[in-house]
């Protein structure tokens, strides 16, 4: 199992995206490049603070961390523009933050405070931020995929050039709703970018143990949806692939499927500790993937261009920690929800 995953990682990385080619093609300036790195650091440390909050019993319920997958959120969402609609699963913190949500309010949501993005009603799994195009994180595996058909439908019906981005995990692909939805997305020619965050595991069940056909992207062929495999640890690989397809999707609406190979270092949920993880993966496998940490891959590019040195790296890292801790404090000090809020927003006026 571990060997198979390793092969997959190498296969993806061997596609050899040339960062410079993407940078030049998109005319990404130095400030922009450093900003991307800063946001990625922010997301990483935000998740670390979430973990701390969970360990300190500040966070209830489930907590699904994104650590290791950061390049998948940034690489796709940096291509989005106002009006685009993004759907995620329960591993949704990064998507919300990268779209521009206030990290304080995201953390407050995770703490279950009324200052949260969903006013404390959703929690970690159900972040929503309409103003930033985040149409929500959803807790039922595969349940967000049918919604993508509706969002894509509305964007097309209203004759916009916006797209819907629908993040799913490899587990969602074995849910019936996924197949109904992809068929309809292609049938109606809807502008939906499906981003498979293929981190190798549906909770504790590996792709090899749950998919008869482990070339997951090829399942999009069944619905006549074009697809490609992308190295999810490399920001520029993801960004470059998305930039190539989104322009056409905006002009001539049609779905696209990205099979993004990535990895989560943390357990499925915060409660999935070392002991349970040992039932399905090895420490060696985790360590091997850490060699291709998206932060390392990106920072190496920046260092290669002379944009980043140890000193700046520490400075940026410290800034990210500061932001995440500020979010923690904001959430911690926010007032608890009032009982009177219980019955608010069950029905719309």
């Amino acid at each position, binding site marked *: 199992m571990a060997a198979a995953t390793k092969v997959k990682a190498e296969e993806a990385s061997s596609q050899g995206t040339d960062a410079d080619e993407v940078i030049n093609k998109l005319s990404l300036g130095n400030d922009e490049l450093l900003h991307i790195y800063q946001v990625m650091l922010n997301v990483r440390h935000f998740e670390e603070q979430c973990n701390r909050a969970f360990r300190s019993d500040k966070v209830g319920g489930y907590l699904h961390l994104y650590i290791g997958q950061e390049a998948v959120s940034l690489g796709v969402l940096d291509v989005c523009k106002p009006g685009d*609609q993004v759907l995620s699963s329960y591993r949704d913190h990064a998507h919300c933050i990268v779209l521009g949500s206030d990290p304080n309010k995201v953390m407050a949501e995770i703490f279950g405070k009324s200052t*949260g*993005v*969903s*006013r*404390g*009603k*959703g929690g970690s799994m*159900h972040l*929503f*931020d*309409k103003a930033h195009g985040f*149409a*929500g994180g*959803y*807790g*039922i595996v595969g*349940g967000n*995929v*049918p*919604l*993508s*058909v*509706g*969002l*894509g*439908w*509305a*964007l097309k*019906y*209203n004759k916009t050039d916006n797209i*819907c981005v629908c993040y799913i995990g490899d587990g969602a692909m074995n849910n*019936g*709703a996924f197949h*109904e*939805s992809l*068929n*309809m997305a292609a*049938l*109606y020619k809807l502008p939906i970018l499906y981003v498979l965050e293929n981190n190798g595991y549906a909770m504790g069940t590996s792709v090899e143990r749950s998919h008869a056909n482990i070339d997951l992207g090829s399942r999009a062929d069944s619905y006549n949806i074009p697809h490609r495999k992308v190295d999810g640890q490399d920001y520029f690989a993801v960004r470059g692939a998305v930039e190539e397809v989104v322009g056409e999707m905006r002009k001539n609406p049609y779905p696209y499927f990205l099979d993004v190979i990535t990895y989560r270092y943390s357990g499925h949920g915060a409660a999935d500790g070392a002991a349970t993880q040992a039932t399905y993966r090895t420490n060696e496998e985790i360590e091997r993937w850490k060699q291709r940490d998206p932060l390392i891959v990106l920072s190496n590019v920046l260092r290669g261009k002379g944009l980043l040195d140890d000193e700046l790296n520490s400075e940026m890292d410290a800034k990210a920690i500061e932001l995440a801790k500020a979010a923690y404090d904001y959430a911690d000090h926010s007032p608890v929800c009032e009982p009177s809020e219980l019955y*608010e*927003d*069950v*029905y*719309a*006026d």
Partner: protein
Amino acid sequence: MAEVIMPKMGDSMEVGKLLSWRKQNGEQVKSGDIIAEIETDKSNVEIEAEEDGVLQTSVEAGAEVPVGATIATIGGASVATNGTAKSQSSSNGHSAAAVAIPAHDVVAPKPAAVSAAPTKDWGPTVNVKYSHAIRMALEEELNADPSVFLLGEEIGQYQGTFKITEGFLQTYGPDRIVDTPISEAGMVGLTVGAAMLGLRPVLEFMTFNFALVAWDQIINHAAKILYMSGGQFSVPCVLRGPGGVGTQLSAQHSQDLIHWYANTPGLKVVAPATPADAKGLLKAAIRDNNPVIFMEHAKLYGTKGDVPESTDFVIPIGVAEVKRSGKDVTIVTYSRGVVLSLAAAEELAKEGIDVEVIDLRSLQPFDIDTVIKSIQKTHRAVVVQEQWEAYGVAAEFSAQIMEKAFDYLDAPVARVAGAFVPMPYAKALEDIATPHEGDIIAAVKKTLERSI
């Protein structure tokens, strides 16, 4: 010589309309030839010749003919037959539903049973079927609001399983009349997602039983997104279609699960009993900013009633209506239960028992005030539902009445409900598994046995 008669396509079918003659009077026909097409409320049915001979028609095209009456004879054949016309669905098996849901009983009921509040000032009205009233609401809202669109299986090119959307595709085009694959989760997802961005989709389930396939999208998504998002994303949509029991469709196609929806916060649930209510409530549902379960009843589709022509005719969701005023016992019910209860009330009136019939119309939110007010007058209540008794609508209203009107009650609340079995196919069994007038009459009398 063989007689060709108007076939009986369902228990309570009394008349059928001869749509057209496919073979002309005096024409030589062969066994198996399609000779005529008749209209029932659910589908058109073609009539085949049973034998060879010369066709002699006895009614004109367009005529309404009682079931069992002769519509033609086929002469010159050597062997006479009993002349029971063999019919086949005109859909030729193309639609599973058209086969599975053959033309069934729906005929115009006794006027008393469906005269929805005739005393109201509704302006000009038309006397139309329940199914047509639904069509009127859809048409008016499609015309009034470009954000309204319809989707469902066979609603466009096929012209609608029950013909409710007949002609719509041609009028409104494929962006607004959307034929879908048989993908209920995908259909509801399309509905909910589009509603999140401000459109007002109206989804047709061919029958509401198919909604079970999309249960996660309805309960976990449609109903909860407003709340989970802290009020950011409302989901203004309608999920409509025929439900109910009593058309010999057996276990998977015949059940009343409305209480499941009404048990879920975030959903509004509506179940009209009359054509006027169907129009007014559907318009309200389409304009509502919440997901609305609009539960029609297959056996009501053919019932007729006066319906206001006004495009402003809207009945607010959550308001019950006293369909018959009385002083002795209150019947609380909805959907087809109203028709049964009104018929039972007429029978009871002959015995001097004066029954008040309350049509809830909406099950979520529900109008408990109208119910309590009535019980304060009658002191007795019977709740009528088609669904299984346990945990149902009647259980809820029994509890509500106990909590809010205990001191007014002179007898325990009685329930009339379906038998706790999967619906059997056999007519003899289905009959006893579903509530009838007689059950309601018995329940009313039971509440009157006790007096305090």
